[in-house]
């Protein structure tokens, strides 16, 4: 089996092997909470695993960039200061992750594993096998089709599953994915024409379900060429509640803050936590000057980063994967999520 090879495995056999994996390593998968919402948690058996889910609010970047993480603990009580790193991440499998989140990881890799390699992030990436589940159940706010964020991907995953009913169609995306199938002696057979046809049918059906609500192209032109009226930014800034929710749930947003938490004068920990470009404190300089003091400037900055050509050129894609979470999470509901802003920018130019 080569990378890019497509195979088919009986669903039952695959899940049986996944169940075996749970005994040996951490398998994180989708599970339902009491209120019916879906979250991803380490699972000990298949009993709690669900396939009945659409893209929920839970941003899976948290498994690679936790909302709060200890970078190291320090102890200065001896003559020689000691730095103690956090425990190493054990090998784990992230099962059932949707394509938009996989594409989000590709975006985050550019930041955390680009010019500077963030060792904690890298360790988590290296120790995590990504088995994604191509998304043929878009929710009402999904628009990944507009951002090359799904529903199916060409790369970024170790294995990409397509649920054909009684079988999984598997795209092998990496040597790690191939090794996993071999190591666990997955009874895989080469995908036949009928499997390919069924997969294509599902993709087309999904495309039809997903309304392309975010026409990015015009908005990208407007932003790149600075053709958006200041009054519109002003209005959007006034609407914004500065809650930071859009950045927290965004699979592409990587901003963080680092603070020291001293337990006493000589011992403590250094913490990294999510920050947001929508917070005034994020860009305030040591002098007290803040280049983006007002919400208007921060909202403008966010969408410039997401949609302007210089950033698209640098990252290779827009800073959005179309997961639609910012639509749900925005306090200014329906006004400042990316699909709403794209629409407003498009209309503003007419």
């Amino acid at each position, binding site marked *: 089996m080569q990378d890019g090879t497509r195979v088919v495995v009986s669903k039952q056999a695959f899940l049986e092997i996944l169940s075996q994996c749970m005994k040996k390593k951490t398998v994180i998968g989708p599970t339902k*909470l*009491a*209120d*019916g*919402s879906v*979250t991803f948690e380490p699972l000990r058996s298949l009993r709690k695993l669900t396939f009945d889910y659409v893209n*929920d*609010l*839970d941003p899976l970047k*948290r498994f690679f960039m*936790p*909302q*709060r*993480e200890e970078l190291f603990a320090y102890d200065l009580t001896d003559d020689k200061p000691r730095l103690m790193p956090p425990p190493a991440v054990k090998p784990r499998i992230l099962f059932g992750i949707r394509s938009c989140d996989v594409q989000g990881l590709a975006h985050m890799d550019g930041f955390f594993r680009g010019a500077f390699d963030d060792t904690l992030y890298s360790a988590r990436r290296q120790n995590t096998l990504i088995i994604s589940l191509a998304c043929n159940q878009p929710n009402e706010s999904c628009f990944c089709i507009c951002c090359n964020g799904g529903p199916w991907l060409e790369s970024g995953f170790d294995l990409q599953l397509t649920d054909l009913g009684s079988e999984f169609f598997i795209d092998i995306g990496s040597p790690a994915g191939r090794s996993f199938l071999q190591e666990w002696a997955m009874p895989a057979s080469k995908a036949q024409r009928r499997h390919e046809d069924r997969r294509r049918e599902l993709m087309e059906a999904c495309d039809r379900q997903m309304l392309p609500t975010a026409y990015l192209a015009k908005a990208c032109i407007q932003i790149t060429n600075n053709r958006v009226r200041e009054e519109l930014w002003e*209005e959007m800034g*006034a*609407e914004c*509640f*500065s*809650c*930071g*929710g859009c950045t*927290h749930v965004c699979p592409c947003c990587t901003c963080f*803050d680092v*603070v020291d*938490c*001293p*337990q006493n004068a000589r011992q*403590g920990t250094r913490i990294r*936590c999510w*920050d947001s470009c929508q*917070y*005034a*404190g994020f860009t*305030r300089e040591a002098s*007290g000057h803040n280049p983006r003091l007002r*919400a208007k400037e921060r909202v403008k900055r966010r969408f410039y980063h997401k949609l302007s050509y210089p950033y698209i050129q640098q990252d290779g894609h827009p800073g959005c994967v179309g997961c639609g979470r910012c639509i*749900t*999470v*925005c*306090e*200014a*509901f*329906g*006004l400042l999520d990316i699909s709403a802003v794209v629409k407003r920018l498009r209309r503003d130019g007419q």
Partner: protein
Amino acid sequence: MLLEVNQGVVLASAPQKSHPVSRGTLCIKGWNGHQIIHHPRRLTQPLIKNNGRLAPVSWKKALAFAVQKIAALQDTHGRASLGVVGSVKTTNEAAYLLGRLARSVLQTPHLDIPVRYDHAPSLRVLKEQSGYGCATAALADIDKAGAILVIGADAKAQQARAGSLLLQAAKRGVPVVEIDPRRHEHSRFFRLYLQLHPGTDLALINGVIRVILAEGWQAPGITGLARLREDGLERFTPDYVESVCGIPHDKVMEAAAVIGKASSLLILFGSGITQQANGTANIRALWNLALLTGSLGREGGGILPLLGSNNSQGAVDSGLMSEWGPGQRDLREPAARRALESAWGAPLPTGPGLTLQEMLNHAGGAIRGLYVTGENLLWSAPDSHAAAAALDKLDFLMVQDCFLTETAAQADVVLPAATFAEQEGTYTSLERRIQRVRPAIAPLGNSRTDLEITQMLADALGATWPVQTPEEVFMEMQTLIPCYGGISWNALGQPGGLIWPAHKDDENCRLYRKLLGERQGAFTEVTAGAPFGEEPDDDFPFTLFTGRPLFHRRSGTLVTRSFTLDKEDPVATVEVNTDDAKDFKLRSGWTVRIKTRRGEVRRSVVVTRDVPRHTLFLPIHHKDGLTQSLMPSTLEPESGIPQMKLCAAKLEMV
């Protein structure tokens, strides 16, 4: 809100999409508030003062010390020499047990909560008029309102969920009338914004009522109008309102038209109209307006006070206001007292209880000791220097909190309390919504939940209370709080819990559906209102007024200990009208000194047209001097709320 926990550490907070109110959103405090849970300065051990310094001790020692001090105090000066201050942030169950402890074990009538500082008039008038002090509407009514009046509140900053629904309503074209001396960020999206002189709300509300009556826009079938007119409403002509409030005649007419012609009127208000000399009169006038427009009990109509804390309503329901027991039973009524005495198996203390500010005012006199739970009084009380002096006069101060706040640092005994993430119980929100909170982790170190602390203290004081779980306490509360009756513990665990009356059906969540018929014409007295406590004069020529910005809370305990929230708004500012700034040759960013009769602070100037001429707006802040240190503690006599919204001030160059 959901918390993500790994090995006993809360890593994250996340919104809940299925929650009927938040609908998958969190405000900035919701996203970052979890940072306080593992804050390095969390109190995890009881402390007692020894030779002037607080030192860690065991719970046994701390409780024994507290009991000994309380006994000595009460033996010498009487039971009523001890005051108890409840929390508006802890659970209903902990609040209820604290009330029971104060009244039946400590036997003191002096028990109050910081609701006194923001919404005492609101709850008093609502109880007086409707029988129960609470909102008549729910947040969902914002979605259904024909028109909305927002007065004395910056909903976006102070109650993000209400602010969000309000913004959405305004964008849909629902006419929103906002009345406030300060123009807010969302004011531009509302149909009408009326920038009145601070403290003149009563004249404007009465003026609007007068126009509605004169034009015949009142709801059909309303009676009792003659009394309203006889009471002196006629004097509130649009010209009179213009002269008092500074609102042009035609704007008053326009506002009255929007409000009077609405199919249903929803009234939202904040502490901007309660912390005044006319606090109670303002709310009575709003009640009249709601009656006149037939809004009470109607879908999309009613009165919704924007209470300040997560459990303000619950703390009131649980019996922590000085004048009311559980279920808002009026403690002056013999039947109410008998019911409580029978349930608790102990006589209740006699005599009226002092309100929160009165306790501080009587410190060193009638009050010799205070037990303060979950409130940093040195930051939240008006005239902070006087409040600090009051605490100094006490023989005994015990504080129960998660952090060594400025108030706790003055204490003789400090009891370490758990945060919200470690507590189990229920909260009741501003719309009467009772919801369960479940512990994500065990209390850190040797801290304990508020419920446990009260139970341990009761035990140490010799009470023979059975050991009760939060669920059992809630069941006991149901016998004394009729509106909480018939609600199962499990039902409260659903996302969003229940709004009482305990039915999921929206129709029943709107109180007073029949009230209009029963009480129509029951208008409250129209008054001209009291004069300001402090009129500007030659020495103090400005009217200074305050407000709570997005990143601050009055007590400051949460926002100053979340590193993300704490860095959001590091500069304390004063907003100065552009024309006043020209007179003083001021520019934004310059530092000035703001003085009142109580003290002075330094502030960085923001020149703006968002505040009226001859006024200064000070956001609540703690850097370079507490904003509250400037404000008067003069009481509004009916409700006991300090008139801490506005006062006379002067501005000096530094």
